């Protein structure tokens, strides 16, 4: 049966796709599968209902006919002088005369000889005591079926007392069910075929609908493939309203990636350019064999190192920001930096106060980088005491790094952000890049850095503001 074939295959496919691991599977297959389930379910219910109604009406009309024959038989019966039943007109149907014709009657009464149709020949209908009233009864019987030949009967029977006799006569009319069984079989086969065809048709339509509905997705795939192969730069086609936002997002992603690639190219160019100047100076000095060659090489090497460090820090920060929108807890990062600075700078005390839970939308390594640079600057150039305060606000978290050093006059603070700028002449190690890197990284994440004067400690106060997470 076709109706049953569909759910079986659907059930077979499910474990297969599950066995392949966590794959979601085909959207098309999923939609067609769901359509198949409800089409089959509805057709089965509809088919069974229709079958019941039609079968019932076939049997009813057959029963009506039998009842009519039974009633007309009773009406034409009378008692002959010997007290036996006879018909005052012979039954019209020829099949009552033909032996084993499939249509029979039998009139029986207690103490009287049974009067049966000729078609019964040597057989007699069973007279059951179960139906003992004058209402007609209709039932199926298998009493003539033998083990090698089936002859299902439909029997109508009724008890009647005829005028001129006190005997209660049992009138029975039986007809082979062959004709109605045949009709029912034909009806069922028609139903099965037509519903199967309907099911297949609906499935095909559902499949077509799915393919048609998902077609724009294929087009998106083709467009993206075209972009990857270089035939196109953007998705330009018009798409349905459900898909359009996706293509717009893809376009924006492409623009973003292009901008990033462009920025990377620009940075590589800048770095190359920045390195070329010191390289030229070194080459010239070496060619001319100038007496201060060694000093020149050291000085220019330091310049190159600054450039490399600066560009490296920027590239790392940009790459990480693009990779993930991560959050970091300021306190954890500060504690790590504090441990490091305690080890690296003898005689320097770093204190941390304020909110322990404050989070910022900055990748942890970049937060370490910024805080490390600021705290180390304070440790190097302060009087030995560094105080860090975490002040969370609504949108930004402020991190205040104060030292008790001499501080920096307001008009000179801006110079600190220049690459390689160092206001001290003490010769402490460093590349003079710290603040430039901090500002670059902070700005990449949408934050800022300001230098102020520390009220409590008298030295410099660096206020790092970063977006709260």
């Amino acid at each position, binding site marked *: 049966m076709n109706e049953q074939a569909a759910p079986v295959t659907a059930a077979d496919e499910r474990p297969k796709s599950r066995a392949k691991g966590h794959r979601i599977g085909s959207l098309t297959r999923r939609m067609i599968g769901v359509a198949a389930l409800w089409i089959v379910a509805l057709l089965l219910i509809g088919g069974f209902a229709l079958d019941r109604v039609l079968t019932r009406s076939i049997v009813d009309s057959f029963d009506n006919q039998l009842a009519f024959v039974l009633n007309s038989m009773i009406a034409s019966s009378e008692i002959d002088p010997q007290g036996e039943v006879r018909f005052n007109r012979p039954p019209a149907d020829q099949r009552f005369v033909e032996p084993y014709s499939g249509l029979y009657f039998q009139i029986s009464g207690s103490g009287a000889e049974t009067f049966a149709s000729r078609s019964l020949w040597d057989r007699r209908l069973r007279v059951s005591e179960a139906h003992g009233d004058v209402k007609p009864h209709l039932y199926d019987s298998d009493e003539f079926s033998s083990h090698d030949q089936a002859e299902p009967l439909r029997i109508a029977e009724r008890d009647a007392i005829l005028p001129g006799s006190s005997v209660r006569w049992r009138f029975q009319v039986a007809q082979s069910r062959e004709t109605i069984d045949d009709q029912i079989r034909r009806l069922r086969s028609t139903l099965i075929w037509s519903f199967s065809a309907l099911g297949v048709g609906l499935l095909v339509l559902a499949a077509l609908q799915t393919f048609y509905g998902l077609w724009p997705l294929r087009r998106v795939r083709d467009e993206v493939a075209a972009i990857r192969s270089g035939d196109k730069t953007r998705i330009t086609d018009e798409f349905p309203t459900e898909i359009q936002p996706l293509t717009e997002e893809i376009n924006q992603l492409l623009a973003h990636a292009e901008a990033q690639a462009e920025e990377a190219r620009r940075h590589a160019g800048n770095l190359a350019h920045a390195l070329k100047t010191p390289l030229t100076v070194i080459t010239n000095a070496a060619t001319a064999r100038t007496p201060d060659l060694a000093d020149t090489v050291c000085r220019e*090497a330091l310049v190159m*190192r600054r450039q490399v*460090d600066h560009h490296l*820090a920027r590239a*790392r920060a940009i790459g990480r920001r693009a990779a993930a929108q991560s959050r970091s807890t300021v306190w954890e990062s500060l504690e*790590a*930096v504090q*441990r*490091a600075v*305690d*080890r*690296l700078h*003898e*005689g*320097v*005390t770093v*204190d*941390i*106060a304020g909110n322990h839970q404050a989070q910022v939308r900055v990748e*942890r*390594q970049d937060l*370490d*980088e910024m*805080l*490390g*640079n600021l705290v180390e600057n304070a440790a190097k150039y*302060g*009087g*030995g*005491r560094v*105080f860090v305060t975490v002040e969370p606000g609504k949108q930004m978290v402020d991190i205040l790094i*104060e030292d*008790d050093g001499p501080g920096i006059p307001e008009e000179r603070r801006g110079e600190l952000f220049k690459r390689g700028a160092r206001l001290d002449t003490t010769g402490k*190690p460093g590349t003079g890049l710290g603040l430039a890197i901090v500002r670059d990284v902070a700005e990449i994440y949408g934050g800022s850095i300001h230098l102020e004067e520390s009220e*409590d*400690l*008298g*030295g410099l106060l660096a206020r790092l503001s970063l977006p709260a997470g």
Partner: protein
Amino acid sequence: MRVLIVEDEPNLGRQLRSTLEGAGYAIDLATDGEDGHYLGSTESYDAVILDLGLPEVDGLTVLDRWRKEGRKMPVLVLTARDSWSDKVAGLDAGADDYLAKPFQTEELIARLRALIRRSSGNASSELIAGDIRLDTRSGKVTKAGEPVKLTAQEYKLLSYLMHHKGKVVSRTELIEHIYDQDFDRDSNTIEVFVTRIRKKLGADVITTIRGLGYSLEEQVS
């Protein structure tokens, strides 16, 4: 002083050895992590210079193994990775100092000296007056558990008074212990510092004994 250098780059290794030998150190040189770990575990060194990028076993693993074996010698880590996250990872693994390549040999020698000096160690001690605590080792001052912002001079003054808790300390004595000899002894900066400390820690923390000096009393909290 005996120093172990673990460095796989032969040129840099040779350069470091000759520089440090010139500075008066006895040098052992290991060129891979396995060898370096073995020497560090079996010999006694005053300091180790450890490169992080090593063949066989990397530097952080070597360091971690030494610390787990209970080897306490100071370790200076050399690395080309100079981001703060790497620095923190190295120091948390048990390094005592961290120097990023490229570096100048003068700086390396200065760091090495400081490292050896520091490792001779000093005992920790905490001074307590009421709810004020002062850790002389780490230099941290807290009031009721919260860290307090003090400048180096304010810290020195408070530390001196806490060391002499309950005694009257004269202004001259304070000046002598807080400043070097060239300081102008007539200046009134001591008064300024005392005022600032009172502002930060509470007015009653330091008592002025008119004509004699200052005193820090044990507070009843």
